């Protein structure tokens, strides 16, 4: 059920006492609550929202932020916020007191929508109740306390570089996480997938989870401590570990959450977080996303990670310096190889041919064409040949000898059919039943030739 449906249902079924409580808490006028139908529209406005939210505790605010992430939940979701006295009782014994508190503290304050939804499988009446936060309220939720500071802080690149240098045998494996990095048939692979900054980030997160032995709890809507930290930290403002602690408790309810200081420090170690010391306390935020040195304009004449004088037609890559995005891109455009402990790139017609036109026309591609003549020549060949030879897969091709049938098919399928010549047509796979229906109607049969 959508939040809108829950809201309509709630507005229709609210008792007058509850409606009055919401009216008072949010400051609606009597006219605005006069019609239940139109009240649903007033409810999701910002009227009185700031005051209502300010009246909540910090934990309640954080819980509402998680509720926004989770969508629709049942009453057990609020156990993280209002603990139960009877944890081993029946569902009703366990959650009825919580239900009453949620209704009093959140629903009657006009912040959380609640409606009874009959769903198959739910045997307990209390389970029928569903709760949600209207998405329009999310921007008004109070943020966690952070500090603004113009300083960029420190990003630890040690682990990132160690992992990359593993490729040329310069360092041993950095962790036990089995994400192998290797060059195979001219391409760089991480965890058997073509190398990308996203795959690299996945390795960093897997290492983080592995080192701290954290897991995602088997509790609906709860996150693992790593997921929670990545969601709660901002990319602009700094946060002290103690400020994030209560939020972690709520987000990771049911999990083995390590102390926030240990959690964030490990994230920084792995290069996922930035760190800044403010008033002798380490503060953290998300590390800036990997971006090329210059993403939109042409590259400078000299790239500190690329050595074109190494061998004619080759580029020697310095794994200590190359930005991850450049490594991802050069992996898509060139043939890579490791020779004598050095990663080198050479022009590849095949890889350039497979690259998208955006990748072929990227600043890095232009830089390579300018500074490595062999690469320029290959790029020119690819530009000249690209789009002239096309192999179409996942299509159905048919020879239609009967002209009236062909005309009928063209009329019925319209732009979902391509006429290849007088006797041949092509159409998408899923249109086969439609074609067979037309054939059956006209008294024709399908003769199938299989590959």
């Amino acid at each position, binding site marked *: 059920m959508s939040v809108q449906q829950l809201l309509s249902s709630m507005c229709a079924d609210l008792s007058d006492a509850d409606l009055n409580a919401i009216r008072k808490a949010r400051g609606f006028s009597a006219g605005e609550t006069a019609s239940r139908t139109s009240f649903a529209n007033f409810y999701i406005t910002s009227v009185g929202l700031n005051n209502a939210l300010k009246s909540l505790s910090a934990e309640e605010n954080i819980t509402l932020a998680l509720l926004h992430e989770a969508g629709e939940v049942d009453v057990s979701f609020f156990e993280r916020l209002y603990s139960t006295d009877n944890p081993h009782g029946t569902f009703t014994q366990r959650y009825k007191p919580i239900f009453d508190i949620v209704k009093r503290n959140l629903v009657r304050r006009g912040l959380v929508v609640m409606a009874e939804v009959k769903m198959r499988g739910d045997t307990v009446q209390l389970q029928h109740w569903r709760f949600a936060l209207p998405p329009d309220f999310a921007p008004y939720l109070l943020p966690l306390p952070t500090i603004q500071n113009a300083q960029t802080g420190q990003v630890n690149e040690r682990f990132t570089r160690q992992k990359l240098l593993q490729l040329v045998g310069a360092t041993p494996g950095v962790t036990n996480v089995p994400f192998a990095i290797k060059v195979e048939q001219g391409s760089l692979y991480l965890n058997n997938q073509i190398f990308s900054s996203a795959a690299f980030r996945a390795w960093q997160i897997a290492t983080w989870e592995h080192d701290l032995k954290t897991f995602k709890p088997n509790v609906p809507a709860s996150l693992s401590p790593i997921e929670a930290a990545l969601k709660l930290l901002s990319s602009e403002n700094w946060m002290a570990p103690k400020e994030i602690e209560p939020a972690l408790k709520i987000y990771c309810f049911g999990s083995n959450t390590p102390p926030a200081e240990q959690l964030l420090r490990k994230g920084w170690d792995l290069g996922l977080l930035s760190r800044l010391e403010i008033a002798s306390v380490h503060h953290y935020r998300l590390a800036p996303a990997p971006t090329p040195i210059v993403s939109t304009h042409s590259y400078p004449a000299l790239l500190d990670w690329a050595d074109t004088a190494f061998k004619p037609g080759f580029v020697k890559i310095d794994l200590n310096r190359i930005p991850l995005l450049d490594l991802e891109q050069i992996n898509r455009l060139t043939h890579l190889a490791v020779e004598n402990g050095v990663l080198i790139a050479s022009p590849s017609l095949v890889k350039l041919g497979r690259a998208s036109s955006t990748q072929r026309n990227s600043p890095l591609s232009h830089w390579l064409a300018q500074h490595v003549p062999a690469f320029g020549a290959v790029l020119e060949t690819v530009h000249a040949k690209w789009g002239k030879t096309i192999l179409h897969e996942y299509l159905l091709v*048919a020879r239609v000898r009967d002209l009236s049938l062909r005309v009928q098919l063209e009329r019925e399928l319209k*732009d979902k059919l391509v006429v290849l010549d007088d006797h041949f047509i092509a159409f998408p796979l899923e249109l086969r039943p439609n074609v067979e229906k037309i054939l059956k109607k006209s008294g024709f*049969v399908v003769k*199938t030739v299989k590959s």
Partner: protein
Amino acid sequence: MTLLLDPIDPKPLDVLMNDRDLLRDMFTYLDYARERSIKRMTRTNEIPWSDLVRIAKLLNIDPPEKDEWRYARPYWVDFIDSLALRLDLVSYDLEGEYRGQTSQEPSFVDNFITVDETRLNKFLELSPANQEKSILEVLNRAKSTHGYDESYFNEFFHYGPLGNLDVFESWGSGTGVIPTLKFPEIRTFLLDLLKNLPSGHWFSVQSLIAYLKANHPYFLIPQSFPKGDRWGQPIGRYDNFHEGKSIDSHEKSVPPDASDAFERVEGRYIERFLEYIPLIMRFVDLAYDPHEYSGLLPSRAMLEAFRVNERFPRLLRNEESLPKVTVQPNFDVVIESDFYPVRMIQQVAALGEQVSNPASGHGVYVGIFQLKKASVASVLVQQPELNIIDLLKNMTGRDLPQNVQIELEEWAGHADQFVLYENFALLETVHLPVEVESFIVEKISPTINLVRSPEKVFALLERLEHVPLCIKHPALEFTLLEETTASIFPKEPAWNKSPKQARQVNVSRIVTISYQFPDQEAFVAIQKMLAELRCPFQSDPKMRIINIQQKEQSRFDEALEKLAGDLLIEVE
């Protein structure tokens, strides 16, 4: 000794003729079992009700109401099911498993019926008469599928699927003379006796019993039957056969020295024997006494007459004639056969559709099919080498009507009007390398070729430095190609890149008027009156508000006027 029986007039009797064609029904059941997987019931191992009803409908049997199913299962379907099992044409678990230590009966979990295609094909290779003979053999030698009730799986104790007569109580049939009797020999003896009777004449059953008593008094129980069972207990000749006022009575067995003992035991057997194989296989028709039975049970002498049908001596004397097929100028194909010619029916049915329900199985089989263009083309798609004209000529043994032959020739060309290529790829290129030619299946145009093994072709083109582009089209539409590509496939339209224009939306204006009523009585009254005047309105019972569109104002005013006698309503 010649078998001379008393003729009888069946007019005052209730005649029972079996109209079920055993072969046709069994093949219908097998087709169903092949197309839909039948999962047998976990507790009883029977065919579930839903499948039973569907099969019954296919066999033109009226299924009983569901709430009566326990008492009115169409036993013919169950009989066909067990016959297919006995012929080894299907298989399923008969043992089951005891799922708990306190289980009293086995359970049959996920017990699906599987059709044995190899055995079925072997069976289909037999001529129709030989198929019937196989069935006769199986029925003659049939044992119970349950080990524990084997001793009473015979005409004495087991109800026939079509008959009307009751049976002896099976109590004690595991001991005594019953386990020593050789029923297959007994049945063969009786069938051999009956095959010599003239067909089409009604004879008295009692005269048959009298003939047997006089000439073959030990045809059922040998004169020298064992005098003791395997535990050393003495065996009496008729100890197993009990009579009484109720069907389950087993207090009094038939005395062997009674003057009518033969009629009471062997006579009853003859009646039930006629209801079993001879009736099931349509060898005989039967006629019953229409009056209610009032003697000791099980009933006796209720089956008064029988008539041997022509197919019986024909089958036993191996007088099978070839099926007769006629193709008529109106495209009808008529098949006539003594026995159900399933192979031929399958072949002809594939070429068209059945236009008449075959004559009920009592006489010869007559089926009429009409040849259809789409069906003929469809058969030719699957078997391109098949010459349908020759096939029909071979069946009929003569030339086809000229118009039919001309049409069939034209229809044959219809089979490849639409040829669909599956799992191929299209290669669009101006410069086709020689190396790729071996992968080409069809040269569609100078620049488009249909190729197989697309991965290999792509790798080859890459190796040859053609810079190929591989487009994997989604399931429902084409991938739009970049404008610079040389292709006849759709490309990204130019408007995709032009600035977005505002979409024009035309809205109609509807003015709604709301009236809020101060009390429930007035609110209900106005609703009733508006409804009577057919005035469309919406109401909010909680707020007691009535909403009407402005154009309905006159009808609302009319409603107020009509209510004026009871309520003086004033709108503020």
